[in-house]
């Protein structure tokens, strides 16, 4: 069956409208997760784009029962893929152990301070901390995602918490 050009245009506009609606409903959560995992607004923006491009490529994405959990998994995998790719290219040291910058002491309940200190954590420690303490992932799940032993995740988590406490104290 042939489709007239005007109909095709109208359909593609409908699809874009629907996609924008889906994006508006979900992007703030995906972006927040990417932002905390990467600690960088531009990298988070690029990762968010990657997440929604993956969504766009997926058939029947609207039929997935738990869109939120599904998107979170894509976001986490996207950020981890990008981190692995950067490591392969040698852009990020394997053991990035930068200490958190010395911020002016601030109360832990100050949300912005907390966000900033989390963003300043070393990459691996930050990802584990965000996944475990903010997103509620289990140690075993994080170990599977990162492709490391559970003990490694646990020690990264303890290190991240310790650095966080030091920076906030």
């Amino acid at each position, binding site marked *: 069956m042939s489709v007239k050009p005007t109909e095709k245009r109208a359909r593609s506009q409908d699809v874009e409208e629907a996609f924008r609606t889906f994006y508006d409903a979900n992007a703030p959560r995906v972006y927040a997760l990417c932002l905390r995992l990467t600690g960088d607004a531009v990298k988070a*923006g690029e990762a*968010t784009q990657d997440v929604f491009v993956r969504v766009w490529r997926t058939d029947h994405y609207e039929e997935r029962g738990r869109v939120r959990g599904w998107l979170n998994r894509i976001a986490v995998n996207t950020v981890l893929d990008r981190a692995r790719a950067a490591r392969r290219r040698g852009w990020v040291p394997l053991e990035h152990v930068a200490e958190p910058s010395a911020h002016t002491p601030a109360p832990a309940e100050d949300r912005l301070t907390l966000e900033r200190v989390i963003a300043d954590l070393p990459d691996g420690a930050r990802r584990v901390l965000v996944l475990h303490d903010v997103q509620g992932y289990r140690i075993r799940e994080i170990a599977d995602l990162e492709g490391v032993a559970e003990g490694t995740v646990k020690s990264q988590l303890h290190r991240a918490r310790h650095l966080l406490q030091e920076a906030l104290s």
Partner: protein
Amino acid sequence: MSAHHLTPQQIYDRVDGWQDPETERHLAECVPCRRRLEEVERLLESMAALPEEVDPPEWIWIGLLDRVRAEAAKEASAPHKTVRRIPRLLRISRRGLYRAAAVLVLAAAVGVGLRLRREGSHAPAPAGMALADDASFRASLEVYERATAALARTFDERASELPPGTREALAQSLGDLDRAIAGVRKALTEQPDHPRLQARLSRTYQWKVKVLERAVRMTTEM
């Protein structure tokens, strides 16, 4: 009370739900360790209470739209054409459509621009063919201006990470684009409804968004 206090690891194990009789006995007797435990618990509560959502900057959507349109164009040119159907869930939900209006107008503007280009740049504009009404054209320009401003801010913050030669080349490209935008804008003040000028302005802004996106990406890859 024991002579030694709990290690940070024992405290973290405790907040993660590991029950160790020795730790419990120590906590029952040691006030400083109980305080440390409470501090860690408060910290974890603060993290768990961080907002789940952060508004994404508009440049993310603009770049995303470019990418999915490129994919759609590739799909359409594939030998077995498949028409993407509207997702069921999304057919019901209409939230966000108003926010999308400006972007859709922009899409219309770019679409018409492409049509004009296909018809040949010297062909006269068809009678009565307006790109969009004044208000929607202005709205679409506002979207571009917000996006380029946000990207330019990010780029300015990071430009120092680029080699001087790259910085100069980018500054020159952006300067050229700004001059082109200013020129078209000036022409539009004399002929505000000219569809070809409107399309050219949209295209120039679109190009500027692309250049800025690429520039910002370069700073993250250094």
